[in-house]
């Protein structure tokens, strides 16, 4: 089992505020790994660093063995940098998120970001655009009919797999909340990724929906041979489905291990699990 994602000494500092402090983590192929922590711990910031939305203040990210992101403190941050491993990173690799997606990493968002004017079908179809080979002239003159038909077939199959085929011509925003979340996941899958990053996929769901989602994520891992890295607050989902868990608090990694180890970790309990989480 190879390491598909490795975050190395990643620090994210906004001015004087350290949002992510020297984060090190690994995700192996085929695993489901969870990133948990109290609100404001820096989980989504970590996701944003991994997917290229933010450039880390310091550190590197490896995907499928290749270094894809690297940065070191520059300009004003040189003096402000409070973290470790300063000076270890010399290059600047700052790909835009679309570049990282094309490498095989796709994500969903904490606040659903579907394309409001488009149908369910088109939301997923648009996500396949990054795999289109035709240029805009060829596409306009319809020389790409075969490729377009193949993409549409794949979208139909994907929608059937996630159970959204019946509503494919509805406007994306007319779907109930739970189905919108599933649509976002289907859309991410349409970019043909190796690694799926889910940001709070169960947010706002009731216990029954959460159970369905848990089963759904397991199915994705099996039928798509997908690796899943997720942020989540719903502990039943996390403990049920994760192979391993990382725990963040105030931007720092305070624990890592299997669900059993985490449940019994005092530091984690102190920081987080003591609070009764209502679904």
């Amino acid at each position: 089992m190879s390491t598909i994602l490795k975050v190395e000494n990643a620090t994210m500092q906004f001015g004087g505020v350290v949002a992510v402090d020297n984060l090190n983590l690994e995700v192996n192929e085929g695993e489901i790994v969870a990133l948990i922590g109290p609100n404001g711990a820096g989980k989504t910031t970590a996701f944003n660093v991994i997917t290229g939305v933010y450039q880390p203040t310091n550190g590197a990210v490896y995907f499928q063995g290749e270094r894809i992101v690297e940065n070191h403190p520059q300009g004003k941050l040189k003096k402000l940098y409070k973290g470790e491993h300063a000076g270890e990173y010399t290059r600047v690799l700052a790909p835009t998120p679309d570049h990282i997606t094309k490498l095989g990493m796709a994500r969903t968002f904490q606040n659903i970001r579907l394309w409001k004017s488009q149908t369910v079908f088109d939301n997923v179809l648009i996500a396949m655009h990054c795999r289109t080979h035709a240029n805009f002239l060829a596409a306009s003159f319809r020389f790409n009919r075969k490729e377009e038909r193949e993409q549409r077939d794949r979208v139909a199959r994907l929608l059937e797999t996630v159970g959204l085929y019946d509503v494919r011509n509805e406007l994306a925003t007319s779907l109930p909340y739970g189905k919108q979340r599933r649509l976002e996941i289907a859309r991410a899958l349409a970019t043909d990724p190796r690694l799926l990053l889910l940001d709070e996929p169960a947010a706002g769901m009731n216990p029954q929906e959460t159970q369905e989602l848990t089963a759904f994520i397991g199915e994705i891992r099996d039928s798509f041979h997908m690796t899943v890295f997720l942020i989540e607050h719903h502990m039943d989902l996390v403990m049920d489905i994760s192979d391993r868990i990382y725990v963040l608090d105030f931007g720092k990694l305070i624990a890592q291990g299997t669900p059993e180890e985490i449940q019994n970790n005092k530091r984690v309990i102190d920081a987080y699990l003591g609070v009764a989480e209502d679904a």
Partner: protein
Amino acid sequence: MIGTQQSRKNSLTSLILVAVMLAAVVVLDQVIKPTDSMSMLLKVLQKGSIYALAAVSMNLLNGFTGLFSLGHAGFMLIGAYTYAIFTIPSEARDVVYQYYDAAIRISFPEVLGNALGPVGTLVGVVLAVIAAGLAAAVIAWLIGLPVLRLKSDYLAIATLGFAEVVRAVFQWGKLGPVTNGSNPLKSFVRINAFQLKLGGTTISLTTFVPVLLATVCIAFIVLLVNSTYGRSFKAIRDDEVAAEAMGINLARHKMLSFCVSSFFAGVAGAGMAMVLGIAQASNFKSAMTYEILLMVVLGGIGSISGSCIGAMLFIAASEWWLRGLDSGVFLGINAPGIFRNGFRLVVFSVIIMIVVLFFRKGIMGDRELPDLLKKRPGKGAAGK
């Protein structure tokens, strides 16, 4: 699959309708004489079709990609001048450039006409129009590099400013040998020149040519908007963070939209020169951009058929139907004190404000004509 059968049927219907429309225009061209009262209809069709192209190309950028740019007049200016410069016949050149030594001394229609006869002349005109579009697209590429990453309000002002810079450059005395400085360009190929000689009869194509030009270009834009690239533009408009996360390179796609939009703005500029018979920088002020924007709003941002309808209505109203408001008698009411010069535009501006405030979606909203005809009960219906 039912889907493709239906869409093939739709395409055929559209093609037939367009052909019928074009044939009707040719008929009108022969039947209506310049002295007829209905000659205004021809003028409206000529000007309206060019403005329709300008409006659709602006809608591509503002309505479909969500990039609020106000530089359209600048690109139309570039297109108008490029077309004019490359179609001035050599015998007229020194008369037009009376204060300068004309630097560009080639006329595409003339050169190709001498080589290949009337077909060559036609090809030459087409080449000049394409050159107009390309010139605008190249400048768009240059200006887009720094400007496209700006936030929407700043993009608007930056593009507005750029259009003013272009106007200043084209009026600059030192560029006189190319642009004729602050003097207009004339005597190039205008729409009156377009005729078809079959046997003994001459078929006038005066209105047909601008309408055909606009139709062909708008057809391409329709194809683009309905392609995978068009869908990406809409994704960028709706949520560009999500679009980027789904693998769409923002810089590349925004630039693509900007350059294609500007290409057709340039072509519209060439069309404008063709119709007016004159290319003058002072015609292409930011007021023109505002008018085109208002046409787009009138028709519905995000609707191509809306932009065409909006443009036609705008031109018909301001140049024809509301004329009476400027000359004392309107709808039978005689009030020369009120109905004098400029009242037409005032009434018109008020109508526009009413649309902007109370009918924000415009005439078509974001639907197209085929949607209306299908009596589509909104996009919420279950699919087939």
